[in-house]
């Protein structure tokens, strides 16, 4: 549906490198990456602020990269909203309908619908400067959606909001997407946001895309150390891999699904590591003994650090900690399956 084929763009010191993306119809697609990796530029290329130096952009098999922005049918919401400061809220929202010369009656229907949907009826007479961040955000989204764009482009839409508003608005975005089904490309540097909203995620590093996939796959199986670090992975180790075993410290081997032979890195999700007082027989192939060196309470979970030759983190529920009576200095067993070990290639 929306396809970027080898898009490159140089802007000042910054380079976007041969971006390939394929966004499906009605998909909520997230581009995730640290600040300064060129995420906004991708959106601006899709919307037509710049022409790509190389590559092509297609929408429904029709090439659009040479079209001016007004002929592309995209809705754009900037991080800082970019509302028209000289127009009232109502005129901001109506702007697109007027410039696209939508008939009065149709315009009225759409306007009533979108203002009700976003609950902004009480703001219509105000000017943008008098609105809070969350309110401006709603107006910017209403202004973009009222034109019924083929693609909605959201540039870090939640990052300028305070934490409470952000949580609420995240749900709101999800609901809007379910309601209207607009194909959405949303960029962010916040992985939890990506996980909560995205059908699929593309991770960017240094102007290029390094991994694309369903949100949960990127989270559970990051393909590189960079992605692992970015999605908040812990328990990252390097070692030599041979015969499905990776030696990560002298005398310490981890069984994993790993076909290659040679140096590699792995990550193990802390929630996949089971903690027990005694060792037990199970299908899990990895069982390490270690001493608890740290216990940090994180709401309903404890983050426990074990020293088993390397430092291993595990998440254990509050109840389990109480039942096993775990304390710092205790010796316990850590057990996990080979499939819990994510190998980077």
């Amino acid at each position: 549906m929306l396809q970027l084929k080898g898009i490159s763009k140089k802007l000042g010191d910054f380079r976007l490198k041969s971006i390939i993306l394929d966004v499906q119809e009605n998909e909520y697609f997230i581009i995730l990456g640290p600040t300064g990796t060129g995420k906004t530029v991708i959106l601006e290329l899709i919307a037509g602020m710049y022409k790509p130096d190389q590559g092509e952009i297609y929408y429904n098999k029709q090439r659009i990269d040479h079209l001016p922005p007004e002929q592309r049918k995209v809705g754009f919401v900037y991080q800082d909203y970019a509302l028209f400061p000289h127009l009232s809220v109502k005129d901001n929202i109506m702007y697109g309908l007027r410039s696209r010369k939508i008939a009065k009656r149709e315009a009225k229907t759409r306007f009533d619908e979108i203002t009700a949907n976003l609950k902004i009826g009480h703001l219509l007479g105000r000017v943008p400067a008098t609105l809070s961040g969350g309110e401006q955000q709603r107006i910017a989204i209403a202004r973009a959606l009222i034109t019924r764009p083929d693609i909605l482009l959201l540039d870090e839409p939640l990052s300028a909001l305070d934490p409470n508003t952000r949580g609420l608005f995240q749900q709101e975005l999800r609901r809007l997407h379910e309601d209207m089904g607009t194909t959405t490309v949303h960029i962010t540097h916040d992985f939890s946001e990506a996980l909560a909203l995205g059908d699929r995620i593309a991770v960017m590093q240094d102007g290029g895309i390094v991994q694309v996939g369903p949100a949960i796959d990127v989270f559970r199986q990051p393909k590189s150390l960079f992605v692992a670090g970015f999605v908040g992975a812990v328990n990252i180790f390097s070692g030599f891999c041979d015969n499905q075993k990776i030696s990560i410290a002298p005398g310490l081997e981890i069984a994993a699904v790993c076909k290659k032979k040679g140096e590699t890195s792995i990550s193990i999700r802390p929630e996949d590591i089971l903690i027990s007082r005694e060792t037990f027989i199970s299908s899990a192939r990895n069982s390490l003994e270690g001493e608890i060196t740290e216990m940090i309470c994180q709401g309903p979970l404890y983050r426990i650090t074990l020293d088993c030759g390397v430092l291993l983190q595990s998440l254990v529920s509050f109840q389990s900690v109480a039942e096993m009576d775990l304390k710092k200095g205790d010796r316990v067993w850590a057990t996990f399956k080979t499939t819990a070990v994510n190998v980077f290639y």
Partner: protein
Amino acid sequence: MVRTNHNRQNTVFSLLVIGFTIILAVFIFSAVGMVILRGLPGLSREILSPEIWSSIKLSLVTSLISTGCCVLYAVPVAYTLSHYSFRGKKMIGTLLSIPLALPPLVSGVALLLLFGTTSWGQALAAHGIKFVFTPLGIILAQFFVNVPYMVKISRTTFDSIDARLEFIARTLGSTRLQAFVSVTIPLSFHGFAAGALITWARALGEFGAVLMLVGATRGKTDILPISLYLNMSTGDLDMALTSATILIIISVVSLFVFEWLGENGASSNKNRI
């Protein structure tokens, strides 16, 4: 002991810089005040004299037309310089500012040569478009000297407006022109108004370029500054002071309005998202 010494040094320094400021303010105020003081008593009497009255009319008409031309011409030029990037843009920007750096007399000579001696200028004159020694020349001289100011002010105004606003307008279906008219122009209004005002005040006072191009002919090209010059050279101090007073009043009022527009523009920019 050392501390006291420092304190004294600091006080002396403060007094010194503040003293400079006060002296300059007093100097300017007394020079300008002197003209107004001497000119005001005669103002009500002389302002209705046919000579001054026709000068005022000629000044107003030529300066208003030249200001209008400056605005109409400078806005697209400033927009080009602010929004488009192309090779040699910096060069063109500098080139367009040349009249700012030139002594107005030289600008006048340049215009006189271009329109008085070239075949192109003569062709224009043959078709009735005469700039040399005519009121039309006054407008041209004022335009030439002032249009770079208007370009500069408009460009600063355009630069201060977030370019993404026009881009957003275009994603919402506007063409370049529609986005310009519906977004950029309204947001630039304060800047344009301030620019036009200062351009107009400068046009009213323009002397050197006008003198070179159209000469100083009583009853034909005697705008207020020329009239002032003619009256001074014939020793008619009262008439001269009247022109000077009118010019001062217009300048000072324009300056205050300009500052006010600037502040209001700035505060509305501050509210901008």
